[in-house]
């Protein structure tokens, strides 16, 4: 086998293979490996940090979601309270205004009744005096003679009573 028999080339093979290996080792170690290993590491770090960031963002988003949910619930509750309060207030205002209106109406009714009463009394007095004069005049004319004062008064009263009865029967 030439690999065992050609002893004379051994020196050259050993020498050149070792030298070549050493040169290749130096060149690769100096120029080729560092940038490639660096980029491998950089990529690994980038992926790791981005996964970490994504995880952090996810947690933040979950926190925000929970916060938002809580705030939404609070706002909902607040809105509900405001609606409730507004309802109560409007009911109160409504009741108050009804009460006021009722009081006013009652007042107006009383005033009107009072006025009617006053007017009625005034009217009655007017009628009474008018009727007295009328009765006196007419009686004087009818009997053509003067009556005593007592007769006059009695006659007047009778006439008045008659007129009043007449009026009441007619519903004045």
């Amino acid at each position, binding site marked *: 086998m*030439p690999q065992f028999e050609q002893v004379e*080339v051994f020196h050259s093979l*050993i020498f050149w*293979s070792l030298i*070549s290996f050493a040169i290749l080792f130096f060149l690769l170690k100096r120029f080729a490996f560092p940038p*490639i290993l660096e980029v491998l590491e950089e*990529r690994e770090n980038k992926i790791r940090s981005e996964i970490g960031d994504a995880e952090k963002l996810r947690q933040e988003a979950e926190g925000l979601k929970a916060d938002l949910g809580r705030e939404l619930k609070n706002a909902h509750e607040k809105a509900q309270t405001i609606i409730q309060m507004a309802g109560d207030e409007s009911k109160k205002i409504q009741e108050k205004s009804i009460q006021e209106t009722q009081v006013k109406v009652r007042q107006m009714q009383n005033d009107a009744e009072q006025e009617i009463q006053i007017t009625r009394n005034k009217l009655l007095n007017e009628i009474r005096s008018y009727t007295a004069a009328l009765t006196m005049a007419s009686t004087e004319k009818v009997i053509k003679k003067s009556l005593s004062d007592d007769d006059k008064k009695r006659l007047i009263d009778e006439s008045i009573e008659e007129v009043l009865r007449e009026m009441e029967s007619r519903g004045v």
Partner: protein
Amino acid sequence: MENPLHHFEIHPIVHLSLMGFDISISKAVIAMWVGLSIVFGLFMLVVKSGVRLIPGKLQIVAEISLGFIKDMVEEFIGEKEAPKYFPFIATIFFFVLACNLIGMIPGSYTITSQLVVTGVFATGIFILTLFIGFAKHGLHFFGILVPPGVPKIMIPIMIPIEIISMIARPVSLSVRLFANMTAGHTILYVLFGLAMSTPLMIGWLPFGFTVAINGLEIAIAFIQAYIFTILTCVYIGDVIHLH
């Protein structure tokens, strides 16, 4: 038919000598240089075209191969020590791979089919492991000769066995690579010889085999480079961790 081992013969092309030693440049040396230049050239092509975070095709190949070796070194030597040994281990891989593959080109030469070359590398790695072992553990390094859990009475038997197994490591490392490369090329040569020396009617059969064996040889070139590298890792890892 010619001697199938004939093409393993080396004939000097440029005669050189250094301090009385013949260091003539032969086809084997030139083929090795071409292979190593291609390796370095490809790496430089990746580096010079700009190593980017989003890699190109060639960069992906470089990254995968280096990542693969890095994982291997970290697995066997440990993550803490790995960066120190990575360039050496990776260079061994690419050196063996380039020498194995360049030999697949007809008319070229596989320098790893020379036992003296694989032997020098295996011995060098063996001496390196001893050096690392003593530097790291001092005299405790002799503990590697006594596997853990061995009864005291067995120690006198175990030590010679362990010494033999330690010495067997560089021998097996070098012979494995040399034998694989030599055998593959010899088989190819024999099959080609058959294909050429028989009539076409029968000759296509060995020729077809050469095509298949060529594919197999390329796979073996990778596998042997891988085995050589992984065993180097294991040996260095062993002396660092001491069992």
